[in-house]
């Protein structure tokens, strides 16, 4: 099945998504890699509302032109690095759509099942293609401390995809299935 969702996405809509489905997202997403996960988990308050956005495992290539940031290339980064943080992150911020590549492990699978969320895969390396689906850069946090790849970038995206539902809210995972073969 193919779905076109606007963020934020409610529980009922998340429950419709099954492993192997194709999803396109419109709305706000934020990037977070290892360091941003770490910082956000330590802080009592963060300067934006992650619950209304999808989380994107991405360290984008950006360019500042006449005072405004532009996306040059922004594909997903390897999600398995964030496995050590993700269950806590989902619990703390109510994240219910995670965009990444390469898959995640059991801890994330369990959290997605418990809190009704999905992990969707975007084609790794397809950075130029992804950048063209990003309409606007809405903000950036921790740029000075963490540098361009690790900072939290807030993007407004339109029909971002195709995203493949790779872990659903029922505990099913494409990666787990393939491993069992």
């Amino acid at each position, binding site marked *: 099945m193919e779905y076109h969702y606007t963020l934020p996405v409610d529980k009922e809509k998340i429950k419709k998504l099954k492993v*192997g489905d*194709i999803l396109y997202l419109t709305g706000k997403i934020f990037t977070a890699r290892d*360091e941003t996960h770490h910082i956000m988990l330590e802080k009592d308050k963060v300067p934006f509302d992650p619950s209304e956005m999808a989380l994107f495992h*991405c*360290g*984008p*290539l950006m*360019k500042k032109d006449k005072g405004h940031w532009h996306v*040059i*290339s*922004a*594909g997903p*980064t*390897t999600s*398995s690095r964030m496995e050590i943080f993700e269950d806590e992150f989902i619990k703390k911020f109510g994240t219910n759509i995670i965009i990444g*590549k*390469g*898959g995640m492990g059991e801890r994330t699978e369990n959290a997605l099942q418990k809190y009704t969320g999905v992990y969707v*895969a975007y*084609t*790794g*390396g*397809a*950075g*130029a*293609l992804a*950048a*063209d689906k990003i309409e606007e850069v809405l903000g950036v946090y921790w740029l000075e401390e*963490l*540098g*361009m*790849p*690790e900072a939290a970038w807030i993007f407004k995206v339109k029909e971002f995809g*195709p995203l*493949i539902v*790779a872990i659903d809210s029922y505990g099913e995972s*494409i*990666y787990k299935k*393939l*491993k069992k*073969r």
Partner: protein
Amino acid sequence: MDQEHIKKGIVELIQKAETDLPSDIVNALKNAHEIETGIAKIQLEAILKNIELAKETKRPMCQDTGIQTFFVTVGIGFPKILELKTLIEDAVKIATIQIPLRPNTVNPLTGLNHKDNIGAYIPYVNWEFTNGSDVLITAFPKGGGSENMSKLGMLKPGVGLDGVKNFIVDEIIKVGGNPCPPTIVGVGIGGGADLALKLGKKALLRPVGVHSKDNKIAEIETELIKRINKSNIGPMGLGGKTTVLDVHIEMAHRHPASLPVGIVVQCWANRRAHMIIHKDGNWEVK
């Protein structure tokens, strides 16, 4: 000799590597796209579209523009050998702003990003010397996602060639979708630990589809491709027939007590570009 002119050439070399994938890898991806179906086909379609888009718009195809890595073969008759290192470093700084490249050099102790793709030992330049007066530079920017899946095995010689083959197949299956398959796997067998890994990386410079000149090694390469592709990991680890596009093996003689096997994984974005600098300072990028 006009140094600014050479720097301009090296920037063009980096741009070519980052935005325009060589035809051997593009053709291999197109062939994979032909034989795949379903989700695997969707992944390869996105990859091929992305390659076209990056080339057309002269933008880096992947946001991870890699650690800047160069293999340089210097003709000993080249008049400005001592200046080459500085020229490469300057060109990397210019390329970072101009192309642009993602700032990818982080101090491992402080966590601070150097912001210009320069740092201790980086850009990484591998020097070799030869006769003549031309300099050949291969730009080989290496992304972190696939590099993270590299592995060194200090095997016991008693496991034999079968042990070596099983180690490679098991490791590539274990890393699954993490290194952005379909990948190219570079393997160095023999030497010491460092040499095995270095040969593994150098093996990736060989064009996709070109087997080792050594028949015995070529046979092993073919066998490993078949075995790994049976795993059904597929493009991006989402299932499919194409997990690796090629396996390239280089060998060195080993110590009687050691059997090092260095595996270096390369994502589908097998970025390479070449440049020749002549002794008069003129250059060509291809």
